[in-house]
């Protein structure tokens, strides 16, 4: 990923991105209704509270909601194939992410996943997921 492809950051999301430097995946928890959500935003989509969230750390486990293996590069310089997935985090929210170590044959839906990290050029990381080496033993990822 080149510098001009680095994800932007804003005031609200800076803590989320900073945590990825330490390979920690944060989720928003609403101070009013306790709902947990991803992606981070000002509004709680469960109760409508604004700026009421705190950050909690995800345990790093998830399951496949759905996935697709991309075979055509969306832009020059992107290596294919790779797997894009919707992963259901143990805390409940969905996250769009990358998957590794999961076969493209429909059995992926049964896979237990653990967090892993893809480094970005500026020291931040992208959360990604891989099949658990030992089922139910995964934690934060490395």
């Amino acid at each position, binding site marked *: 990923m080149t510098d001009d492809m680095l994800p932007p950051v804003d005031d609200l999301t800076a803590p989320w991105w900073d945590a990825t430097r330490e390979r920690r995946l944060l989720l928003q928890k609403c101070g009013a209704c306790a709902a947990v959500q991803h*992606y981070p935003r000002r509004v709680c989509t469960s109760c409508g509270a604004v700026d009421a969230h705190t950050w909690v750390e995800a345990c790093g486990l998830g399951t496949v909601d759905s*996935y*697709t293996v*991309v*075979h055509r590069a969306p*832009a020059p310089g992107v290596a294919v194939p790779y797997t894009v997935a919707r992963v259901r985090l143990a805390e409940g929210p*969905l*996250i769009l992410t990358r998957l590794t170590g999961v076969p493209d044959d429909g059995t992926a839906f049964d896979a237990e996943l653990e967090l892993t990290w893809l480094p970005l050029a500026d020291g931040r990381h992208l959360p990604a997921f891989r099949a658990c080496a030992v089922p139910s033993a995964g934690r934060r990822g490395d």
Partner: protein
Amino acid sequence: MSGIALAGAAECDLGSTGMSVLDLQVQAVKRALDDAGLRLADVDGMATNNVGRFSTTALADYLGLRPAWVDSSFVGGSAFEAYVARAAQAITAGQAEVVVVSYASNQRSARSRSLGGVREDHLPEAQFEVPYAPLYPISYYAMAAQAYLHRYGATREQLAEVAVAARAWALLNPAAFRHGAGPLTVADVLAAPMVSSPLTTADCCLVTDGGGAVVVTSLERARDLRHPPAVVLGYGESTSHTAMATRDDILDTGADRSARAAYRRAGLAPGDVDVAMVYDSFTITPLLSLEALGLCPPGQAAGVVADGHTRPGGRLPVNTNGGGLSYCHPGQYGVLLLVEAVRQLRGTCGARQVPGAEVAVAHGTGGIFSHSATVLLGVDR
């Protein structure tokens, strides 16, 4: 019944035209007005998009019109079904009398389509989704297809049958981009280059120039015009997500809410529908919509299509023009659903005519199942 009708319908040039968007818009608008027996000067309402940042003012300027009502909602290819609903309301409220709903794109000639979509840095997807490089919108439809196959035990071959059926219709439509391409087989679809699994290039709609227009006016006025009116019986709409991981159930598109509202307004049930024009951006798209419209039981649309029921001569004719998969897909396809529905109700579809079609549904899907809009049309009785 709304007391509103579609009095004119036409395509602009389709395929690879080498023309500008405005040239194609002029064709679409003029041909639809000619079809209705109306003139540009009769138009006092306009709905369109994709012309520029200010689409309706730009088109009004180009056509030399000063409409009393406009709409340029930008919700994806289903916008045109929603425009018909808004136009019906505007005409009923007395704000306009003759509304032209139009669309045109030169995306094939201009090579303006990008597999990755457009990154808007101020939106959350730029931070939380774009970095994973999904194809936009293809990868979302691919994930929906994968989930559909998994949840319902449908087969990859059944999914391919959607494209096979579309081709069968296109062979009967001289205006279809694939009219001369010969039949498509399931094996052809599966052997086509993989784009975003399980979808191959043959599961994806065409990328063509094209567009069209429909003329919306009161049923009373439409009765005095050139062709029998296609009466607007009902409409509905639903708006949802735009990010790929916010809709909790990827197969819950909101199309059922749109469809229910349309049936309720029309006082009709799914069994009353004679012919269905259902947005087919990808092979998965019409499967979910046919189920949401109540035309197939949940989880069974793939089997219904694979059994041949949606093909020519089938009991549930779907996308009789050949659809976005084999006829034309100019980026936003919704206006062409309406054009074909009108032609079926007039009985002017020639070799692909559904005998005795009296009720047609046009169901649009915008974005990544982001917006659904349904219009029920019927003959004037």
